[in-house]
């Protein structure tokens, strides 16, 4: 839920990165963290297991700049991708303003993508949201790997509406900011509409 503070002239929005296990959600956040000036972002908090798998969420506040005299602050979250952490995923979607679905382009992960996307739709519904009406971006990650599905085929399978589709290699940063920009733009446009 967007929070507008007229006293401090700030707009705060929540973006959630969703997707199957090991698709690169945390890597997206890490790249944003490493590529932004310390003055415009806070700490990257990772609640992870000892083997660096997300246990609850990753969190990073990011200030993008000023629009009409209001500072725009985005709170970026990832969900744990592993199937059995579903209760945590539901909690993190509460109050969401925009969603990025990070798909793993590798052939063997197609089923996991479909399952995770279905899970996203279901969990949004239980929180009272409709994916079709929410700011949303589909990121096709890991485009540098050898055994990947062609973009057209992946998009045909995973696209739910007219959402922007961004090809990415989060590990080297390709497409990461394009994805963030695409979702942030939709969130701010929603604000204009009211």
């Amino acid at each position, binding site marked *: 839920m967007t929070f507008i*503070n007229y006293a401090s002239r700030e707009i705060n929005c929540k973006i959630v990165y969703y997707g199957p296990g090991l698709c690169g959600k945390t890597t997206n956040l890490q790249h944003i963290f490493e590529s932004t000036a310390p003055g415009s972002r*806070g700490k990257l908090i990772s609640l992870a297991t000892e083997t660096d798998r997300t246990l609850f969420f990753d969190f990073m506040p990011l200030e993008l700049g000023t629009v009409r005299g209001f500072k725009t602050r985005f709170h970026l979250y990832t969900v744990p991708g592993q199937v059995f952490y579903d209760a945590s995923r539901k909690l993190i979607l509460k109050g969401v303003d925009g969603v990025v679905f990070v798909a793993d382009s590798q052939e063997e992960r197609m089923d996991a993508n479909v399952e995770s996307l279905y899970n996203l739709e279901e969990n949004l519904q239980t929180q009272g949201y409709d994916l079709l009406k929410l700011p949303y971006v589909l990121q096709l990650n890991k485009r540098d790997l050898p055994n990947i599905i062609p973009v057209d085929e992946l998009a045909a399978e995973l696209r739910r509406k007219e959402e922007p589709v961004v090809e990415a290699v989060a590990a080297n940063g390709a497409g990461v900011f394009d994805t963030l920009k695409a979702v942030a733009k939709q969130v701010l446009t929603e604000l204009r509409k009211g």
Partner: protein
Amino acid sequence: MADTPLLLREQQYHQIKALLARLRMDSAAKVVFLIDKDGQEIASQGEIGNLDTTSLASLAAGNVAATGAMAQLIGEKEFPTLSHEGERESIHISVIGRLLLIVVFDERSSLGLVKLRSKQVAHQLSAMIDEISKEEFRAEDSEFAEITDEDIDSLFQ
């Protein structure tokens, strides 16, 4: 669709700050702050210093969300308060509707005092929150109606 935005006007912000300042004094706390259940910080008072209140707010919201979900699993609606006691520093969290009141305190205070004082201001905060929640966001009346695509694009240059 996303939820309708939560609006905080300047006057309400100062009323909340004043209430938090009183709570901080009465409970001899280090820091008192109010956040929403999504982890957005609304107002804070006290010895903030280097304390990363943004991270703390997000973790406190996650903590309340997780324990709330546990409560439901055992048949409770929610756990209305949470306390974490450390060797020197402690945290007390009260759930007030859609908001969370967080008090950070040390040996100058006690959990009993913080609990008591938090409870006393909870109903005043609750009334203020009701008032804030009633306020409808009307984009056409706000500065946001004038946001242009160029304004948004300029954020990413």
